[in-house]
């Protein structure tokens, strides 16, 4: 791979501002919500009990607050795993994550996700890549997920 030796990683900085369109519609099911809730020790009945969810004003069972990661990471992969990104995924660690819910995600939602490459910053041997996943139900925004990955450069291996 030809690479400028002064740069810490092969991440392509010219992709800032790029948008990756959704590849498929994701259908949220009660089963998926129940599985995610059990895995994350989420014990609130509104995740699994329709009556409890409706008593709170929701149309169906409610997803845990970080459930949207399932959609965001799937969509981010379109960029992160692409050859053009220059990201070596074996050198990636998760640095930051932020969820903003415009409304709760509930079972029955059919969601689409668009990924934007917002920032690429070099910090010594690390390149920080920030993406923003905009999740919508086709008509209205549902959640915004901002994720920062830290990509380690090869010289880190000397440590």
């Amino acid at each position, binding site marked *: 791979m030809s690479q400028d030796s002064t740069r810490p990683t092969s991440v392509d900085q010219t992709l800032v501002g790029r948008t990756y369109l959704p590849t498929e519609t994701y259908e949220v099911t009660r089963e998926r919500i129940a599985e995610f809730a059990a895995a994350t020790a989420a014990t609130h009945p509104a995740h699994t009990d329709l009556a409890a969810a409706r008593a709170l004003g*929701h149309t169906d069972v409610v997803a845990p607050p970080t459930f949207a990661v399932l959609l965001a990471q799937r969509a981010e992969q379109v960029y992160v795993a692409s050859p053009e990104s220059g990201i070596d995924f074996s050198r990636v660690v998760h640095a930051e994550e932020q969820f*903003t819910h415009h409304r709760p995600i509930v079972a029955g939602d059919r969601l689409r996700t668009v990924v934007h490459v917002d920032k690429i910053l070099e910090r010594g041997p690390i390149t920080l890549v920030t993406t923003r996943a905009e999740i919508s139900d086709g008509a209205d925004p549902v959640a915004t997920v901002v994720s920062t990955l830290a990509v380690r450069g090869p010289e880190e291996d000397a440590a």
Partner: protein
Amino acid sequence: MSAPALSSLETGQELFSRTVEVDRERLVRYAGASGDRNPIHYDAAFAESVGLPGVIAHGMLTMGLGASAVAEWAGDPGAVIDYGVRFTRPVQVPPTPGSAEVQIAGTAGPVDSAAGTVRVDLTVTSAGVTVLAKARATVRLG
């Protein structure tokens, strides 16, 4: 499990704390539920080959445990309108039958009466070290 009253909250007030056991079974469950099947979360030899001390929990699992504690306190998972963290250290998970403990504590941050929201600041530690920094949720209670 009813919602706390916004007017009863004061900045700095301790709101809740819980400890969650994280064992390999939980990692497998989270891998299945989230679709994140990176072998660093179940294969010790692989984890060590990429410079880790052993099997570690998904950062997003740890973040999710924090969200679950906030959601339960709030009385409605849909009330958590914003939640962000910085991942500082991984949670190391020993082989079965062992487990790691993740400690989660929530404190009230600023109350925004006009918006009907409170910021909940989380302290999340394992084996005495902070694993999530700047862990903050905004909860709508109004």
